[in-house]
């Protein structure tokens, strides 16, 4: 039975400190809608965030939260999930967190297919540190650390996720919270690792990739009746579409792989935190015999 959860249940006493018009409001709204839609009560969800504007999100929703270090929420979330696998675990971090400093953790979480939903707020700029270029900034992007425009090409999160073995790869837009909520809900329902990269306009430091810039270009993959998100080759092609037309929606989904936690024998009966400790004395005594 789905529990009755309302937007009010998810109301935090803390007021967001985000700038007016920030894309993070749309993401917060979408996250709440997804939890309401799925009827997940606040005590059964745990958010793990990095450091950055968007990583303050756990404080702005009534649920369990862990605001960690820049680039580091992904391994913490995995350790937590393995210790309490009944919990809905959601990582919320930014493009700097996940595509920059925490890139190695991201690469490896994707090949593990642990049942975690990962929302990356991708504003293509470093906002909280006041306007340096990001790993996703477009080539030529002018910022305080690229005064003549960046001379690097941006990360392609969708293509990397596909290559690394992620089993749910999606992209949303903070300017369309309803669509984004639906993606997040599907990501939570997905059995395995789910990436939802989110275009999140930064109204102060990114004057290029604005709400209008995105609205002029984005289209929804699900509107194309010929698009099959189970087809990795199609997904690979769409992952590289950029410019006048940019796809959002579910690029790829594979529901056939076991999750990491399903493959760990110790987790077959109950969550690890519920295991009785210490072990039985007779088992410990038996262990001694291997050293005789």
């Amino acid at each position, binding site marked *: 039975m789905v529990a009755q959860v309302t937007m009010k249940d998810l109301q935090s006493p*803390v007021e967001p*400190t985000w700038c007016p018009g920030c894309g993070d409001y749309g993401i917060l709204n979408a996250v709440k809608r997804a939890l309401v839609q799925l009827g997940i*009560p*606040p*005590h*059964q969800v*745990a958010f*793990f965030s990095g*450091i950055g504007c968007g990583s*303050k999100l*756990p*404080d702005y929703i*009534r*649920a*369990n*939260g*862990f*605001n*960690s*270090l820049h680039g*580091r929420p*992904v*391994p*913490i*979330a*995995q*350790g*937590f*999930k*393995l*210790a*309490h696998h*009944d*919990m809905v675990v959601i990582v919320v971090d930014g493009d700097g967190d996940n595509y920059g400093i925490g890139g*190695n*953790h991201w*690469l*490896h979480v994707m090949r593990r297919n642990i049942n975690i939903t990962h929302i990356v707020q991708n504003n293509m700029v470093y906002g909280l540190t006041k306007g340096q270029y990001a790993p996703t900034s477009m080539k030529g992007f002018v910022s305080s650390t690229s005064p003549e425009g960046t001379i690097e090409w941006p990360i392609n999160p969708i293509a990397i996720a596909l290559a690394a073995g992620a089993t749910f790869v999606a992209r949303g837009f903070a300017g369309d919270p309803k669509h984004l909520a639906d993606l997040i809900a599907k990501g939570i329902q997905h059995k395995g690792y789910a990436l939802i990269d989110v275009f999140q306009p930064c109204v102060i430091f990114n004057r290029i990739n604005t709400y209008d810039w995105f609205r002029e270009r984005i289209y929804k993959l699900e509107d194309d009746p010929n698009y099959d998100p189970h087809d990795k080759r199609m997904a690979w092609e769409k992952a590289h579409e950029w410019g006048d037309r940019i796809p959002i929606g579910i690029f790829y989904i594979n529901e056939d792989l076991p999750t990491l936690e399903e493959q*760990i*024998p*110790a*987790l077959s009966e109950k*969550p*690890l*935190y*519920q*295991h009785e*400790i*210490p*072990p039985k*004395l007779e*088992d*410990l*005594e038996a*262990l*001694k015999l291997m*050293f*005789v």
Partner: protein
Amino acid sequence: MTKNSVNIKLGGEAGQGVESSGMGFARAIARSGLHIFGVQDYMSRIRGGHNWYQVRVSERPLYAHEPKIQLLLAFDERTVREHLDEVVEGGAVIYDEGLKVDEDEIKSKGVIPMPMPLLKLAEELGGSKLMLNTAAVAAAAGILEFDLSYPESVIRDSFGRRKGSEIADRNIRVANAAYEEARRRYAHLFEWKLEAIPDAPKKMVLNGNQALGLGAIAAGCKFCCGYPMTPASSLLEFMFAQARRFNLVVRQIEDEIGALLHAIGAAHAGVRAMTCTSGGGFSLMVEALSLAGSTETPVVVVVAQRPGPATGMPTRTEQGELLFTLFAGHGEFPRAVLAPGSVEQCVYEMARAFNLAEKYQMPVIVLTDAFLANSLRSVDMDAIDFRKITENIDRGKLILPHEHEKIDEALKDGYRRYEFFEDGISLRIPPGHPKAIYSVAGEEHTPEGFIDWEERADNRVKMMQKRMRKLEVAVSDMKLPQLYGPQDAELTLVCWGSSLGPTLEAMERLNDNGVRTNLLQFIDIHPLDWESVADILANCRRWVSVEGNYSAQLSRWIRMNTGLKPAGTVTRYDGRPLNPVYIVEQLQSLLVKV
């Protein structure tokens, strides 16, 4: 004749089975009721190079190895070249008769060459030249006149069940022939003998890493993760090997950064969690350690030291990370550092680390080193009493989210993760209960756990005092340095970690030589009741710190906390473990100066 006191060295190329033969022989000797101490030395390569394994035997417990040996088993010519000088007069070298060994040179040192048809016996009776090491160990048993049934039982256990008893039978055939041949040809020439003590207490043979694993499992550690790094890897492997039996989650992570963070995540969920690494890996963990301090998450980190800086000497030993582990991490936060010095202490201190971590909701570091992690020791089975661990589990102010009644009782007016209490310790309810929905943050936070976005001065001061207060309270749970030897002495040796064993023996030798000496071992490094430590040291006539590092780091830590200076220091930083002979020599030159 010298009975039951001998030092044996096996040497050869990597891949020749030097370590497994040495460990097997050590195990066989321990089964006969004698005590052993086994230490290995290997190069960071899979094949070739030069490896050795040394087994010391005695009727009483051993804590260290000795540089002088009585018996050398050479699997290659290089072993004779490199180690002949270590063999005492009257000692022997056993080697295959096919090796190009200069017998006259051996004889010129007063050592007896004992060529044997080891390869021939292995090939003819065993059908495999791989059984050469079986032949060599059996030959050693032959000249020691050690009851072959003990090595046989070890052979049976190693090969019998797993690969079919046929291989065991062939090994035993080789062993018997080599044993008889060696005994017939050489036993009468060799002074040292081993005689079983069948009614001695039953013994276990294990190394420091295995002992840490036992302690962790007994303490209810359910989550262990790491990234392989010598000399910590064998601890991670031990936990993997026990995962099924004890329902553990053991994980290999992409790097050490992720390893400590995984442990933090698991601990945040209410599980006893640990990670293990060496200095280089710990360098990567430092940021996460600070996060554990800020979020008050109880995790245990094992740091098995090896020489640095950088990659240093990957297969050697050093005690160079004491000050690093004490100060690692940005910002000020509470932690504890424990340094067990023996196999038994590894078991108990590891278990205690989990209690301290959970009781004070802080990271605890357990410091060992390659010497302690790898060296093999026999201990009486009764010396490891798991009840001492299982009956003393202390999880502090933890209530798990499924303990509904306890939560109802504890929470009258809501839950604040970082609520202020006099002892600085807040109630810890991991996420999952509807009455305890909350956030935590590495960033400075409010009692509710929200980021204090105004960065208020008064909240900051309270939070700093709350966290640091835990250290003051924890002092009551910490042990003052342990005294060994006579109460009053003219010389006190101060040591920590693996230097305990060699320093203990050095102390005994000094006492035998008329220098009244005792020893103070620091197991608990931090936090400590430093006033009491100062009193203890002030009562020592002269104290000298004995450490396996360059800068005598413990003596610096003591001075920082008490203002007291040692009369001198004995240090070693060539990558080799301390040993009693080295310590006494260094002390002699030091004491002349003092």
